[in-house]
């Protein structure tokens, strides 16, 4: 049994979400953009894991199962994102998203 306060965890995930939003808005490199999205997604997963432990019982187990599925989704997203990075690099010679102005690569 562990005792931890809910406010600290919600504060941590709020801070991580804010950092992720800051990264998405300021960075122009596609890989840094992907990393920002990962930070924001980890904030969401952290909430699921905390409340899974907080609730206990079947709902808690469901929360952990959702966290497992979310981690899988995040890994998938990085794989597709890096595919886009390679295609962008081949088409434009750069991975700066500001220069990806044509919809067709």
């Amino acid at each position, binding site marked *: 049994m562990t005792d931890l306060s809910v406010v600290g965890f919600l504060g941590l995930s709020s801070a991580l979400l804010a950092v992720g939003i800051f990264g998405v808005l300021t960075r122009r*490199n596609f890989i840094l953009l992907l990393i920002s999205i990962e930070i924001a997604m980890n904030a969401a997963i952290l909430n699921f894991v905390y409340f899974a432990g907080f609730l206990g019982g079947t709902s808690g187990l469901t929360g952990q*199962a959702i966290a497992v599925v979310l981690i899988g989704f995040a890994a998938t997203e990085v794989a597709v994102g890096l595919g886009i990075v390679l295609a962008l690099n081949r088409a434009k010679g750069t991975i700066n998203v500001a220069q990806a102005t044509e919809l067709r690569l």
Partner: protein
Amino acid sequence: MILEELAFVFLAGIAVVTAVLSLLVRELVHTILWIAIFFVDLSAIYFLLEAPFLGVLQLGVYAGAVTVLLLFGIMVTRKRIFSREAATGIGAVPVGLALVTFIFLIAAVGEFSSAPGTIHSYNPSDLSQNLFNVNGPWLLLLGLIMLGAVGGAIYLVREGRE
């Protein structure tokens, strides 16, 4: 427990600092280093939350696979791996938006009671029962989406595509 609270404050501080540093350093390889520390740190937080299965999954998928994928992404798109990014200004508007989001969320968090809540521990076999029986369809859907994503990624990077 005061020890667990201290451990959480320490780990949370490392998480926020490494997340900010990973977006602010100018060498992309250093970014990957900081983000790897961030992922390992979150895995430690999961262990603290009595979710060892998720902690190991975080280590394997994020600290292992995602970090290596991002490193490969950097290696194949630049001539020299250790080359600096052009400095990008940190505009007032993005920082302001992020701060407003943070303050809004913190104000909402303030509504919660700050009394410590008990974290329940799980038997991993119960989790696997739940994962493959109750939530089996979602896991199947995840597998199908991953298959589609792999097909899409191969389509994107294949040779000779116009």
